[in-house]
């Protein structure tokens, strides 16, 4: 079989040329896609960040690093960086712990397991905007479930306006992100757990290994490639998720919950300061790319 493989792929010179031509032809949609919708926008954003571009009618004036220097001077820049980092860190951490925990739970045998498994992923399939309104409604001071519940168990005396305070607003955001995002990881981890060999687990059981030992020495090493990929994906998705913040807090109160996507959108499309927004976008990109490359390198992720 090996000879055939070589014959059909690389030995014959003529065959090879046809392969190269076919490969290039087959790939052309992707190459066009990358050039038009990835590289072009990327360099355009970079260029815009050095201009004072604010209207399609006026020429774009080159301003050097002004947009960046201004950003570093603004307090809002720090808020945006901190919020995005804090939100991403907590959400990814909880997504991972909850995802794995629930996956282990759903891997046990119990009645109604297949129904629960199917239901668990619903939040992921639900549009983000809808999830946003839902959580905003749940944390509504007078009409929401959370205050009603806390009042009924007498944990609080009066209604709490969750979204009017920066710290509680951030907590509401983290909760909504986890609710929306963790189901995806639950399902992936659950599927990954099913590839752990039963024999190995049985052998460990006979050797007297407890739950934590099995988790640490058999399960985690086995699914660690999946964990790497999912943690990486979760970071990128959380970092760039726009809808929930936009709908739940709108970046408020007083810009205290602004994250990169919402602030870039606002600067560009509400205030029409495209140059400034592009500088923020470049910074967003650098932060994420640095993290991505470091993570891939340190955790030796195979992509």
């Amino acid at each position, binding site marked *: 079989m090996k000879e055939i493989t070589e014959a059909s792929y690389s030995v014959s010179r003529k065959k090879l040329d046809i392969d190269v031509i076919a490969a290039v032809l087959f790939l052309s949609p992707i190459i066009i896609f*990358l050039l038009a919708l990835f590289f072009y926008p990327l360099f355009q954003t970079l260029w815009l960040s050095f201009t004072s571009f604010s209207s399609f009618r006026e020429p774009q004036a080159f301003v050097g690093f002004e947009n960046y220097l201004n950003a570093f001077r603004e307090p809002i820049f720090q808020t945006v960086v901190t919020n995005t980092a804090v939100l991403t860190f907590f959400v990814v951490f909880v997504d991972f712990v909850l995802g794995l925990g*629930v996956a282990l739970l759903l891997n046990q045998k119990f009645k109604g397991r297949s129904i629960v498994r199917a239901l668990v992923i*619903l939040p992921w399939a*639900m549009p983000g905007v809808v999830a946003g309104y*839902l959580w905003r409604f*749940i944390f509504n001071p007078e009409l929401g479930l959370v205050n009603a519940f806390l009042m009924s168990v007498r944990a609080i005396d009066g209604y709490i306006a969750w979204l009017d305070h920066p710290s509680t607003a951030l907590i509401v955001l983290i909760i909504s992100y986890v609710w929306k995002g963790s189901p995806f990881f639950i399902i992936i981890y659950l599927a990954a757990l099913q590839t752990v060999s039963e024999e190995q687990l049985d052998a460990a059981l006979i050797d007297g290994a407890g739950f934590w030992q099995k988790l640490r020495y058999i399960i985690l090493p086995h699914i660690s490639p999946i964990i790497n990929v999912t943690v990486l994906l979760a970071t990128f998705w959380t970092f*760039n998720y*726009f809808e929930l913040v936009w709908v739940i807090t709108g970046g408020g109160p007083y810009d205290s919950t602004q994250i*990169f996507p919402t602030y870039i959108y606002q600067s560009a499309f509400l205030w029409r300061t495209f140059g400034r927004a592009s500088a923020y976008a470049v910074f967003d990109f650098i932060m994420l790319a640095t993290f*991505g490359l470091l993570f891939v390198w340190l955790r030796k992720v195979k992509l």
Partner: protein
Amino acid sequence: MINFKLRTTLLYLAVAILVIWILLPIVWMVSTAFKPPKEQFTAPPLLFPLNPTLSNFETIATPWFIRIFVNSLIVSTSTTAIVIGMSLLPSYSFARFRFRLRRHIFYTLIFSQMFPLAALIIPIYMIVFTFNLLDTYYALVIANLTFTVPTSVWLMRSFILGIPVELEEAALIDGCSKISAFARIVLPLLGPGIASTTTYIFILTWQEFLFALTFISLDEMKTLTVGILRFIGQYAYAIDWGAVMAASTVASVPVFVLFMLLQRQLIAGLLKGALKT
């Protein structure tokens, strides 16, 4: 024995907490959608409506709402069809051909998916503006390609890798060309892969919000996700939550149904994608 019972009890308790955490918001959404106005303002709130009514759905069932529902369908369906069509041959190429730059192009593609949409949206807006495509379906379909094409190629490639290569080799020896080997052998076996990639891409585009918010300002061209904003209105204290939740329910149903139909294949596909990167 007692230990076993305790364990079982704890297990079911944990499952119950999980189900409440996942489902309570969804139940709350649907129940609010069926509540008459009076029951919206009770303290404590009612978990289920006492007198279920369709009045909220009647409020939202305007010709405009039907229009934006159809808009969403058009945009999601055409994006999905184009993406699937566009990624079949490249995925095959990534899975089967060996050539220089293959890995580089593939990595670039995967990494492009990880870059912030916010960093891409201004130039894409300029493209759309220059070609006079604001307020058209084209704008949304083109923009949606940015995040769907990489995912689609990634998933589809892993499905193709799962098909034994020997079948194609036999065909090639029999004098089949590469393209007909793909069409006659790979494509028919790729059915489940295409089905789950389609589902995944459809769910993603159905949710899309940022591009629709940016590129569409005409009311009749809006999609569902952005259209729902209208029920919120200008003043936060005057929100008609019954209508918002009814619209939200309508927006969630298609993806819930689609997902329930294809969940098994979809999950298997996602896992393959995550494993065979």
